[in-house]
């Protein structure tokens, strides 16, 4: 019996150690930045790695559309020497930095091109946390790399601060963060006391995949003063559901992901959904994606919530407010005039 107790104790103490360590890492990830006087900076990236950057990076490679978008907003587009695949498909580049489209392609999260990246001789590489296994390979090539993981607004703020720090653009980063949190605060003030309609966000691939309670999209709904009808799901990616499940949840609004291959008409004309409240009241809309898909955690992502709030609560948040606010945001940080179409 005693032996079992000892084993149990050992296991428990091991578990405590493990827990302790992981919380230490996330605390460090938050804000443990130390700067040296000789313009070298040490940061902890969003996967918990410690990286020291010596001297202001002049050649930056970004393998993630979110970091690319952050870099543009920080005014660093001229220092970008390589970006992720399929850049030509992102209208934000065409609008704010057309020269990026012709930059060398370093691959995607699915397939990162180490050789191409090394040939660009970058001072700093920014990649999504999904690619963290490649850290060692890049380090052995003598390349500095940081990983970002902007899954929600806090983590996006952290990512912006991290990129600001490593590129020596802290002031601009702080300005960007302030703009985002001002909008977020404004929305919270306007919508927190209002009734929360049920909203379902359907995915890019088909109308029977929805955003679960664990996804960024769920956060987007809550910030806009709504309730995610699919809250009970805990999937990390779009969850496949049935027509019946959608009818059971009976959302007041169906919102289609920004880059979806189907339109609001497809849902409005789907006879299987004709009994759904959202369809009956014709409350089916697609998230604007004329510049960036506003349901992704890019710096302008908060405007996805702003836009949704203007649909859910038109009496307190007007469409003109949304257009004015997003236009001045894009004008200030990206240097172009926003239009909804």
């Amino acid at each position, binding site marked *: 019996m005693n032996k079992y107790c000892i084993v149990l104790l050992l296991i428990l103490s091991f578990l405590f150690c493990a827990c302790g360590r992981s919380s230490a890492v996330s605390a460090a990830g938050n804000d443990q930045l130390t700067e040296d006087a000789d313009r070298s900076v040490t940061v902890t990236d969003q996967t918990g790695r410690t990286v020291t950057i010596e001297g202001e990076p002049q050649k930056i490679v970004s393998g993630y559309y979110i970091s690319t978008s952050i870099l543009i907003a920080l005014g660093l587009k001229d220092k970008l020497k390589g970006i992720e695949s399929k850049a030509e498909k992102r209208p934000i580049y065409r609008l704010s930095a057309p020269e990026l489209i012709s930059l060398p392609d370093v691959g995607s*999260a*699915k397939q990162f091109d180490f050789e191409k990246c090394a040939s660009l001789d970058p001072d700093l590489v920014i990649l999504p946390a999904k690619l963290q296994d490649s850290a060692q390979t890049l380090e052995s090539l003598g390349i500095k790399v940081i990983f970002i993981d902007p899954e929600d607004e806090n983590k996006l703020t952290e990512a912006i601060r991290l990129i600001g720090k490593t590129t020596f653009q802290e002031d601009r980063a702080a300005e960007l963060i302030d703009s985002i949190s001002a909008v977020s605060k404004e929305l919270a003030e306007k919508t927190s006391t209002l009734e929360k309609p049920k909203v379902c966000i359907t*995915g*890019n*691939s*088909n109308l*029977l*995949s929805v955003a*679960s309670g664990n996804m960024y999209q769920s956060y987007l709904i809550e910030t806009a003063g709504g309730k995610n009808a*699919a809250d*009970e*799901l805990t*999937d990390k*990616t*779009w*969850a*496949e*559901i*049935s*027509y*019946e*499940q959608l*009818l*059971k949840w009976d959302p007041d609004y169906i919102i289609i992901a920004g*880059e*979806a*291959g*189907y339109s609001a008409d*497809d849902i409005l004309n789907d*006879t*299987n959904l*004709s*009994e759904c409240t959202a369809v009956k009241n014709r409350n089916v809309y697609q998230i604007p994606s004329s510049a960036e898909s506003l349901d992704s955690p890019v710096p302008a992502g908060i405007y996805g919530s702003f836009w949704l709030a203007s649909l859910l609560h038109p009496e307190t948040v007007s469409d003109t407010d949304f257009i004015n606010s997003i236009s001045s945001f894009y004008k200030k940080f990206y240097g172009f005039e926003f239009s909804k179409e």
Partner: protein
Amino acid sequence: MDLNSVRNKRIFTCWLIAPVILFVMSLFIGRYPLSAAELLRGNSTHLNIFMNLRLGRALTALFGGFALGVSGFVFQCVFRNPLASPDVIGISSGASAGAAFGILFFSGTVSVILLSFTGALITLILTVLFSSLDRYEKSSTFVISGIIVHTIAQSVLMCLKITADPEKQLSSIEYWIMGSLNGISTGRIPFNLVLCIFCTCVLFVLYRRIMILTLSDEEAKMLGINVRRSRFLILLFASLSVSSVISLTGIISFISLLPAHIARLIRKDNSQTTMIMSGFIGGSVLLSADILAKSVSSSELPLSIFTSMIGTPVLIIYLLKERRID
């Protein structure tokens, strides 16, 4: 002997009733709280869900499972190989590649169904073409050309997957390959169901030829049938019925391979009753898998998980029984 046949009859009746019970269960189990009282009262929401969603799904599971079970039996007889299934001649890879093409370049369920059916047909035609290159009329030629076509279809599928956006289409493709009856509504199934029922009926009509083909080619020739033509005809109809089902459901593991084995373990012969039974077992397994897939969690789960989970234990039980008798 007499006792055995009584027992056999009882088992047969059990497997005959099982799909009927499961069919009714499937009609009344689902995410939406459907009530019989509301249905009788004529509540339009309830009626709509029942007629458009539940009925279509249950019918597809019943007839689809039946057709897959029967065609699995037929493939195993014709190739004289217990491991033969429609996968052997590349139909399912063809259907997958077709579906992936549909998911990538078109949107909407109907185009995916059409393209995966087309994909299955193309692989079937290619398999027949390649096998006709061989002057000798061996059944192994069919298998080899099947493997060739299967490999081609797989590489096409890989090419399509690599171009797919992981956030959008790739997950849909992966999901399709695991099989699901989600999204099927009554309006979308008539063509496929009629085709699969027709082909299955033809297979029953061709039963005598199928049995003759289980003999060696020489013996079959002596019995006066044209081996090559018969084999072609039988495989054509079996493949057509499989294609019409999997283009609706996606690839479902186990379902075309094991029902025939279970049926044969119970009946211990290759009679017509065994063939029917294999269909009923297929239908029952698919219906129960679908009931689980749509009710276990709020999100839809792929069918293949459950068909294997239900099917393999049944097979293991029968194998163990077999050993005890021996």
